[in-house]
Structures are given as structure tokens and as C-alpha cells.
């Protein structure tokens, strides 16, 4: 069967992100956005002269930070999280081809999974940074329970990862804006089979096999 990428049929579309995943993504994005926006005056406080409301900004930052893991945890738990859990497994497990593709920065051939290795790495980094920022942020807040050198370490790690998060998030947004079909799928959930054939061949095959089996 040949898959003409131009064929715009309803029947030939595939659900890339279900409602749970889309809600989780955008809730998480909103929380990251608020954290990053409040981080700027916290970090450059003396720079912009916006210290005026530093304690207010810090309070918003803290509560948003504490809420950060909630959307992802909720989306993973319960009966509604099937797709989410399946994609976590997908992001975790890499084939040799994917590892080689990542090492050569996309130079080697790859029939991609639902997510390409770069996208997978972005998710893994995001997951790790949530845990790290939550842990070090809590240490900054409840510093009394930690020895002074650890407080110094927590400050450093919180700042260093914040820096990395800014780079990764900017990269993520640039990639999203330059890949319109992918971008649309995180709003609507859908991609065309043609898109899948071009960008996620392994996933397409997998879905077709599943469909064939259940028929």
C-alpha cells in the first residue's frame, strides 16, 4: 500500500496525543512558563530594579514549583493514563539505531518511533529537571534542615539547571515552531498517516499491525 502524504482523508489520521496527554503537556508548559518568568527577576533582582516585589515573586515561584509534578503524576495514574504510560515506556526504551542516530546527531538512517531520539531526550531531561528543581527548590525553602555546604550546593544546582532548562525550552519551542504538523498534533491530537510514514515509520507499522490483529 502506498501512502500519499497529500491524502487529506479523515480516515487516514492517527491519534498522536490523547486528551490526557495534551492536558498534561499544556499544564506542565504553563507551570514551566510561570517558573521561568518568575525566575528571571529572582535571579537578576538587582539588575532590573524589580526587587520591589521580590517576596511576592518568590512566593508565586515557590507555589508554582510545588505544583509542578502534579499534572504529570495525575496523567500517569488511573485508567485515563494508558496512553501516557505507554509513551513513557516508549521514551525509555531505545533501539540501537536510535542510539546511533542520537550519537551522530541525525546522520545515520532511522525509521523513527512515535518520537525521534531528540524528542525522547527532551522528555527525559524535562522529567529529570522537574525532580531536581523540586528537590533543590525545597532545600532553598526549608534550608534549616540541611547543613550549610548543602545549601550552597542546592543554590548552585538550582541555578545551573535553571540555565540548562532555559536553553532546552528555547530549543524545544524553536523546533515546535519549525515543525508545524508536530505542533498541530499537540493542540488537536491528530497527525496524518502520511506524516507518520515520513516521520514515525516504526510507530505507523506498529499501529497498522495492531489494527490488523484486532480486525
Amino acid at each position, binding site marked *: 500500500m502506498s501512502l500519499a502524504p497529500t491524502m487529506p482523508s479523515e480516515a487516514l489520521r492517527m491519534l498522536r496525543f490523547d486528551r490526557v496527554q495534551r492536558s498534561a503537556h499544556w499544564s506542565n508548559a504553563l507551570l514551566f512558563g510561570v517558573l521561568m518568568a518568575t525566575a528571571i527577576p*529572582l*535571579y537578576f*533582582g*538587582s539588575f532590573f530594579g524589580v*526587587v*520591589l*516585589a*521580590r*517576596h*511576592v515573586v518568590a512566593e508565586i515561584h515557590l507555589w508554582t514549583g510545588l505544583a509542578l509534578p502534579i499534572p504529570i503524576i495525575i496523567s500517569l495514574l488511573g485508567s485515563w493514563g494508558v496512553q501516557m*504510560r505507554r509513551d*513513557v*515506556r516508549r*521514551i*525509555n*526504551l*531505545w*533501539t*540501537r*539505531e*536510535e*542510539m546511533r542516530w542520537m550519537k551522530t546527531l541525525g546522520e545515520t538512517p532511522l525509521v523513527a518511533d512515535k518520537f525521534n531520539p531528540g524528542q*525522547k*531526550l527532551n*522528555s*527525559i*531531561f524535562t*522529567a*529529570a*529537571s522537574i*525532580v*531536581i528543581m523540586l*528537590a*533543590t527548590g525545597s*532545600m*532553598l525553602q526549608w*534550608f*534549616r534542615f540541611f547543613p*550549610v*555546604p*548543602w*545549601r*550552597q*550546593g*542546592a*543554590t*548552585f*544546582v*538550582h*541555578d*545551573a*539547571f*535553571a*540555565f540548562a532548562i532555559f536553553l532546552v525550552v528555547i530549543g524545544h519551542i524553536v523546533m515546535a515552531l519549525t515543525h508545524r504538523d508536530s505542533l498541530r498534533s499537540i493542540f488537536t491530537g491528530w497527525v496524518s498517516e502520511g506524516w507518520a510514514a515520513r516521520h514515525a515509520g516504526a510507530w505507523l*507499522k*506498529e499501529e497498522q*499491525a*495492531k489494527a490488523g490483529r484486532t480486525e
Partner: protein
Amino acid sequence: MMSAHRDASISPKAPKRVPIGRRVFIGLAALGAAGVVFWASVANFFSGVLGSGLGGLLPGGDRFRIYSITGNYPTVSRANYRLKVSGLVHDPRTFTIEDLEAMPSTSFTKAFQCVTGWRVPDVRWEGVQLSHILKTVGVKEGAVALTFESYDRADTECLTLDQAHLPDVIVAYRMLGAPVTTEHGGPVRLYVAPMFGYKSLKWLSAIKVVDGVQPGYWEENGYPVNGWLDGTTGPTNPDPQLT
């Protein structure tokens, strides 16, 4: 187990897969944890070898975080600045900044260490020892402690009389090689070297000699009244070059 089954049934000839996600995740988390535990010693080691500088090269290193309780800076010009010293003293006085500068000055280089964890090494401080001011006004019998007030009308601090006589407790009018800036608590602030930063009250407006320790703003909010950097009950090694 169930899930592994399901995956296998989806693609029977599935190629061998490696849990890269878990490895990278654990690797990053371990890196973060190591940073928390070891960063301070690494930074100290390098500032010993390179003569500081490492922290300054990295995001978040060696940088003041400017706090203010009121959300505002009181701006007091040099000309309008007054330090009122009162309470259990023989000669209550109000000093101008010129008065303070005319007193014997002390300068040294010491870190500013915040109780929440950030630290700025090698800060140059200059001012007059608090003990000298106390000698000038003459402390009366029965005096036990000092209270400090700020031009921000919010912050207060306290020191025992003994603490106030330590050689590296100063009323500072220069910091980082220049007059103390407004954001750092200028024109005149307290600098209590052997204690955490919250003891070094900014925008110092008044000193009162009293007959009992009165916890200040941060201490009312849960910080230790004796904010010794080493967490002990007293200074372990007052700077020998100052004694």
C-alpha cells in the same frame, strides 16, 4: 511484567531495546545530588587553587541576592545620613557619616554568607569597629545587649555586648571597594562577619544599648538569635590579624 508482555505482542520481531531513558534520568538526578553534596568543597578547593573566580564563571556563582523586607529600598543620601546611638550610654550621640569616617577605620576581606545557602567570597569591607563606637559613647552599668534599627522601618537586629565587641563586627561605610550602595544597605550598614548575613542589618539608622536581648525581625521569623556561621555557640577563631 504485564506491560512487557503487551509490548512484545505489538511487534513480535521487536529489536532489542535499551532503557536509555531510565539511565539518562538517573544520571542527571545523580549529577544534581552530587552537586548539592559536593559543590561547596569543589568551589572551596578551586578558590584555594585559582584564587577564587570559579564561582564567578558559572551560572549563579558568587553573586549577591538582593533582599528587602519591605519590597523597597530606603534611599538616604550621604548628607542626610544620621546614626543615632542611645540607651544605656553615658553620652547619647547622633553621628554623621563624616563623624564615622573620622574614627579609626578597619578593613578586611571576608565572605558574605547567607543562611539560605548563597555565598559571596572575598568581599572587601571597610568601616569602624562597633566596639569603638561603644567606647565613644560609654556603655553604662547593667547594659547587656544592643538593638539595631534600619531606615526601612522594618528590619531590626540584636547583638549581645560581647558579640558587639568582636573585632570583625563593624559599622561599614565601604563595601566592594566603593561606598556601600543603596541595594547593599548603604550609605551605612552593619557587617557581622562571624554570623549569617541576616545579622548584617542594612540601612543602619539607630543603635540602642539595652539591658536584655531583644530578638530582631529575622529571629522573630525563626532564625537563630546567635547566627554563628559554624552553628556553634560562639566564634571558634576570631580573625587573628584583627585582634
